[in-house]
C-alpha cells in the first residue's frame, strides 16, 4: 500500500450528497481481474457526454484539477455496493484524500486499505471548504496525517479523527493483512476450541 504522510493539493469540489459506488465506478468496469486501468471509469456516468467525449463541466475533466489529489464531496460518500474498485479507480486517477461530512462504512474500510484517506469534517468546515473552492479555486490545503490536521489557506488548522490502527498502517504504507497473519496462533487456538 502507498504510504500516506502529508499532502498538499488543490481541492476538487463535487458537492453531491450520497454519491454511490455505482457512480464512482459503474458495474461495466468491474470485469477486470486486476486493479489497474480503472481510472478511465471513474465517475464515468457523470464524466462523459452521450457521445463518449469528456463533459467539460465535470470537475475532474477540467484542466485546473488535473493534478489535484483531494476530493471534497457531500454527505454519505461511497454508499451502495462494496466494490473496492471505487477506491482503486480514485487512487488510479490520482486522488489521495476525500473530505466529506460522512462516509459509507464499506467504502471507508476499502479506502483505508488503499492509501486513500477519508477525512470527516463538521458541517461548518465542510461549508467553508466549498466556499474556498468557489472563491479561490486553485487554493491548496495541507493534510498532515501525523497530527491529523487539515491546514487551510487562512492558517486555520482543522483536526480530524482516524483510528490509530489505520493511521499507523497508512503512515507506514503497511498492508493490514500483516497484522492478521501475526494472530495466527490465536486464530488456531480459537478454531481448536470450537471446531
Amino acid at each position, binding site marked *: 500500500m502507498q504510504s500516506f504522510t502529508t499532502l498538499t493539493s488543490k481541492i476538487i469540489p463535487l458537492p453531491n*450528497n*450520497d454519491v454511490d459506488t455505482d457512480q464512482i465506478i459503474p458495474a461495466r468496469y468491474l470485469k477486470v481481474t*486486476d*486493479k489497474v486501468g480503472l481510472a478511465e471509469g471513474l465517475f464515468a456516468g457523470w464524466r462523459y457526454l*452521450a457521445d463518449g467525449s469528456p463533459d467539460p463541466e465535470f470537475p475532474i475533466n477540467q484542466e485546473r484539477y488535473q493534478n489535484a489529489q483531494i476530493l471534497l464531496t457531500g454527505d454519505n460518500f461511497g454508499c451502495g455496493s462494496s466494490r473496492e474498485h471505487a477506491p482503486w479507480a480514485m487512487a488510479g486517477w490520482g486522488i489521495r484524500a476525500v473530505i466529506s461530512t*460522512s462516509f459509507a462504512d464499506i467504502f471507508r*474500510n476499502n479506502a483505508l486499505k488503499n492509501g486513500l484517506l477519508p477525512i470527516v469534517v463538521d458541517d461548518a468546515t465542510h461549508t467553508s471548504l466549498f466556499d474556498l473552492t468557489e472563491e479561490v479555486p486553485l487554493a491548496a490545503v495541507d493534510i498532515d496525517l501525523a497530527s491529523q490536521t487539515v491546514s487551510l489557506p487562512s492558517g486555520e488548522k482543522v483536526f480530524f479523527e482516524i483510528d490509530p490502527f489505520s493511521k499507523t498502517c497508512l503512515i507506514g504504507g503497511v498492508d493490514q*493483512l500483516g497484522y492478521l497473519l501475526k494472530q495466527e496462533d490465536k*486464530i488456531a487456538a480459537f478454531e481448536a476450541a470450537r471446531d
Partner: protein
Amino acid sequence: MNQTIKPRTLFEKIWDSHLVHEEPGSPSVLYIDLHLVHEVTSPQAFSGLRAKGLQVRRTDRTVATMDHSTPTKELSLNIVDAMGARQLRQLQANCKDFGIHLYDLDDPLRGIVHIMGPELGLTQPGLTIVCGDSHTSTHGAFGALAFGIGTSEVEHVLATQSLLQYRPKTMRVDFEGELQPGVTAKDMILALIAKIGVGGGTGYVLEYAGSAVRNLSMEARMTLCNMSIEAGARAGMIAPDETTFEYLAGRQHAPQGADWDAAVERWRQLPSDPGAHYDAVITLDVSQLAPMVTYGTNPGMGVEIDQLVPTPAAQSDPARRAALEKALAYMDLEPGKSLHGHPVDVVFIGSCTNSRISDLRAAAALIKGHKVAEGVRLLVVPGSESIRRQAEAEGLDIIFRQAGGDWRFAGCSMCIAMNGDQLSPGQYAVSTSNRNFEGRQGAGGRTFLASPLTAAASAIAGKVTDPREYMIG
C-alpha cells in the same frame, strides 16, 4: 453468589462469541464462519494470496458461485463477452488452484450467492458470514451476523478466516401492525429507508423486530434484511424462531439428527435478552402502509404508490433540494405528481432481493390470465437454478411466458446489468431489485424499485400500478 449477567442483544451474542483477539489501539479480530465468494470481487484477492505465497486457510468454510456476469439466456460461457468470460474463467481457475468448492455455471444448485446460501442450509443462526458483496446482509434474516466486505478483506478472510473490525452500534427497528393485502416485506424496507435515509443506518447493525417481522415468512425476512445496506447499515438481522428452524430443517448443509436438536437448542439462546441495550430504537407502524415505489436515484427516494413525488422547492435544506432536483432531472419526472400511471418500458422480476419462489408465485398469481401490456418487456429471472426448476414444476414459467414475458436461467441479471440484460438509455423499469442508482440497470436507464406484486401489476398495465387493483376478492 448473586451475579447478574448483563442482558445482551442478538448481535452482541454473536459478536462476543466470535472474538479471536482484542487489544487496545487495534480493531478486534473477528472469526468468520462462512465466506461466500463470487467472480467480481475475488480475482484481486486471489492474486494477493499468490503474490504473498498464502493459501486459503479454511476451504471448508469457503464457498464460491458465479452470478453477476453469467448469462441468463443459456448456460454457456460462449455467449459471455470476452472480459466477463475471462473473469468467470479466472474464478474457475482460482477455485481449482486453492481447493474451493465452486458452484459452476452448469451446477444444478448454482444461483445468486445470497439465494444459494440459505437454500443449501449453509446460512444458519449465530454464524458470522461475509462476502465481497454488500447484499450479504440478506443472511441476517436467520439471526446470523452477515455483512459485505471489500476485496482486500476478501483476501484477509481467505488467508486467515478472520477480519479486523470495530464494534458497530446497534439499532432495533420495530415494525408493528398487520400488513394489508398486497403489501410486502419489500414495501416495509422501502418505507424504512424512505424514513431514515440512505445514510440513516451508517455505523449500525439493525435488528428488525416487532409483530410484523415475526409474521413474515423466511423468504420475506430475507427481502427485508437484504436491503439493510441501502440504509447504510453494516448488517440487518432478525432473531431466529420457529419460522427459521422450519425453513432450515432438512436442508443439505443444515445439521441432521441429534446435531439438529442440539443446534436448535443453541439457536434458541440467540434472541436478544429482555432489557438488552440498543444504541437506537425506532418504530414503524406498517398497518396502514401502502405498496411503495421509488421515484429517485437512491433507495431512500421512495413514496407510497398513491403519494406525490416531492417538490424540490419545498425542501428547506439546499443539499437535499439539489439532490432531489438532480434525481428528478435524471428520472425526467415532474415533482408534485403521482407515479401511479407513469408509463414503463421494462419490468424486471429478479435479484437477491426478490427472486425466491414465493416472489415468483406471487407475481405469477397476479399475472395469470393477463397479458403483458403491448410494448412492455417483462424479464423474470429466478434467483437460483433450484428455484427455476421448482417454478417450472409448478408451471409458473408457462404463466409468465403465456403472458408474453421472458423466462430465464438464474443470475443477478438486470439488477446490476453486467451480463447484457440491461435497460437502454431513457427506458423506465419497474424493478424488484435493490438499487435505483443512475445507470445501475444500464447506462441512462431509469428504475422504479417496487415489490414483485407491484412489478407484476405494472407489467400488465404498462404503467406503474397499485397491485391491489388486480387483487379484488
